[in-house]
C-alpha cells in the first residue's frame, strides 16, 4: 500500500507574507516519498467560523525522505485553508497520500522549461530539483502578480536553473511576452519538454507551441475534489484520448493531476 492515512505532527506553520503560509509536517517514511506533482488530501481543522467538511487536496512544496518531512506552501483563501492556518507546532493533522500521478521526465532530456504562475510555483519547485539531479538543464519562467509574490525563486536558482521573472505590474507577464520568451529560449537552447500547472491561458499557449516547435509537455491540473482516490468522480475533466483523440472523462485525482499537455481539452 503506497498510500497512507496518518496523523502527522505539525512542526511549523508560519506566515510567509500576508497571504501565504508555509507548513512543515512530520509525515512519516511513506508520505515523504511523494513525487513532484503528487498531492495529499488534508483533513483541515474546523474552527468557530469555518466548517470545511471535505478534505482539501494540496500539492507538496518540499519533501525530504531523510527527515520524513513534507512541506506545503498555501494561500489562505477559503474555509479549508483558513482551517489549516490555525494549526500550530505540535498539533496533529490527518494526511492522506501521496496521491495521484506526478510528473514524468525522460532521462534523455537535455533541457526542460518550467512555466509557473502564482501558487503553482510551489508545485513545480520540487520538479526543478528532480531535473537537476538528473543533470537536465532547466529554464524557469516564473510569473506572478508582482515581485513580492515570486516567492520560490531561490528553489529554482539553487539548482542552477536559468530563472526569468515576469510580473503583471509591468506587463511582462502578458501572454504575448510569454510567447516571445518561449520562442527565444527555444531558439537559443531548444527544450525537450515544458512543465506547467494551473493557468488555462498558459496551458493553451504551450499546447499550440508544442505542436509547432515539437516539444513534449505536462500540466498539473486543479479541480475541486472530495475523496482524492478516484471513487467519487467529482473532479473529472474531458481529455483527448488515443490516436483518434476521442473525448473521454478522466479523474484529476486518480488519473492525474498531471496530464500530457496534448490530452487536455481547453
Amino acid at each position, binding site marked *: *500500500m503506497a*498510500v497512507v*492515512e496518518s496523523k502527522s505532527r505539525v512542526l511549523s506553520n508560519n506566515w510567509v507574507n500576508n497571504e501565504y503560509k508555509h507548513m512543515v509536517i512530520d509525515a512519516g517514511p511513506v508520505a515523504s516519498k511523494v513525487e513532484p506533482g503528487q498531492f495529499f488530501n488534508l483533513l483541515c481543522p474546523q474552527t468557530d467560523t469555518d*466548517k470545511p*467538511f471535505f478534505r482539501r487536496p494540496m500539492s507538496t512544496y518540499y519533501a525530504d525522505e531523510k527527515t520524513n518531512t513534507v512541506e506545503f506552501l498555501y494561500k489562505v483563501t477559503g474555509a479549508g485553508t483558513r482551517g489549516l492556518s490555525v494549526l500550530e507546532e505540535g498539533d496533529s493533522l490527518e494526511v*492522506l497520500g501521496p496521491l495521484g500521478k506526478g510528473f514524468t521526465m525522460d532521462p534523455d532530456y537535455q533541457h526542460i522549461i518550467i512555466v509557473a504562475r502564482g501558487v503553482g510555483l510551489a508545485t513545480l519547485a520540487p520538479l526543478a530539483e528532480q531535473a537537476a539531479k538528473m543533470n537536465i538543464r532547466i529554464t524557469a519562467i516564473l510569473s506572478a502578480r508582482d515581485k513580492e509574490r515570486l516567492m520560490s525563486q531561490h528553489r529554482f536558482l539553487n539548482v542552477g536553473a536559468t530563472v526569468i521573472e515576469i510580473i503583471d505590474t509591468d506587463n511582462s507577464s502578458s501572454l504575448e511576452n510569454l510567447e516571445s520568451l518561449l520562442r527565444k529560449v527555444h531558439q537559443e537552447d531548444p527544450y525537450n519538454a515544458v512543465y506547467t500547472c494551473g493557468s488555462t491561458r498558459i496551458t493553451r499557449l504551450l499546447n499550440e507551441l508544442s505542436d509547432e516547435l515539437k516539444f513534449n509537455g505536462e500540466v498539473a491540473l486543479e479541480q475541486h475534489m*472530495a*475523496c482524492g482516490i478516484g*471513487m467519487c*468522480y467529482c473532479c473529472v475533466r474531458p481529455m483527448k484520448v488515443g490516436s483518434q483523440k476521442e473525448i473521454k472523462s478522466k479523474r484529476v485525482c486518480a488519473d492525474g493531476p498531471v496530464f500530457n499537455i496534448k490530452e487536455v481539452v481547453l
Partner: protein
Amino acid sequence: MIDLSVTVKNFALQNPIMPASGTFAEGLSDVVDFNRLGGFVTKTFTASKRPGNPVPRICELNSAMLNAIGIPSKGLDDYIKNTVPFYKQFQPPLIASISANTAAEFGELAAKLSQVDGISAIEANISCPNIEAHGKAFAIEAKSTANVIKLLRASTHLPLWAKLTPNTSDIIGVAQAAESEGCDALVVGNTLLGMAVDIETRRPKLGNIMGGMSGPAIKPIMLRMTYQCHKHVNIPVIGCGGIMNAHDVIEYMLAGATAVQVGTATFINPTTMIDIIDDLATWCLEHDVTQISEVTGLMDDSPFEPYTALS
C-alpha cells in the same frame, strides 16, 4: 470471541459493514484491506455508457455534502471485463449496483449479470435522484417500485436488493411493494434531494442544479425510515445514511437494520469502514454482546408513559 457475521436473508456477510454505492472503488484498496469488509457494493452502472452530469458535481455543506455525479457509466462490458475480475481477488462478496431507464432494461441488465461468475447479489438503484429531472425515480411510488421489482425478480436468481429513496411520501408503501414482488432486502436508502446556491455568482453550486444530500446531517431521517421499513416488512433492511462511526451503526441496528452501508464518511476518512469494524467488536465486548446480529431490532419502542397534564 465476538461474532460480527450477519445474514441478509440467506446471504452471509462476515460483518455488517459495506460501502454505499458510489463512494467506493478500486482506489480504496491502496489504503485499506478489502478482505476485512462485509461486502463490496460497487458504483452504479448502466448497460450502456453514460457521460454523467456537468461539473461542479459535488459541494460541501455543514456536516453533509451534495452530489450530482449523474451515474457516469462505462457500461456492462467494461464492468464484466474490468470490475468483476478486480474484486474476485478478495474474499468478500461483490454486490453489483445497477440502474436503467426502464423496468424492462433493468430486467435485461439483471438477467445478463446473473450469468457472470463473481457477482453475488444485485442492488437495484431504483432511487438515484440525479438521473431524471426533479429527482424522479422508480422508488418514489409503490406502483412503479412494484413494476420494476417484478421484472427484476423474474430476471435473476441472485439475491436482489432494492435501494429505496427518502424522496418519497410513502416509504412504507414502497418498501411493502418491493417485498411483495420478491425483493430479498431493502437498502434504506439513497440521498435526499437538495440544492445549494452560490450567493456571489448567483449560480447553483451543482451543475445539475439539484443533487443528493448525504452525510451525518441526514442520519436521523434515514434512521427513521430504516425503523419504519423494519416495522412494516419481513425482509432484512440495510441501513444507509450518515454513518460516521460504530455508534451510528449500533443505532441503525437497534432501529432494525440487519447490516449497514457507509458512504460519505469514507470520503472524509478512507479508513472509516475498517475503524468501524474494529470498534464494533470493542462495543460488543463492552456490552456483553457475543453476536452482533442479536442487536438488530433490539430497540425498546414500547410506548412511553402518556403525558396527561393539560396546558
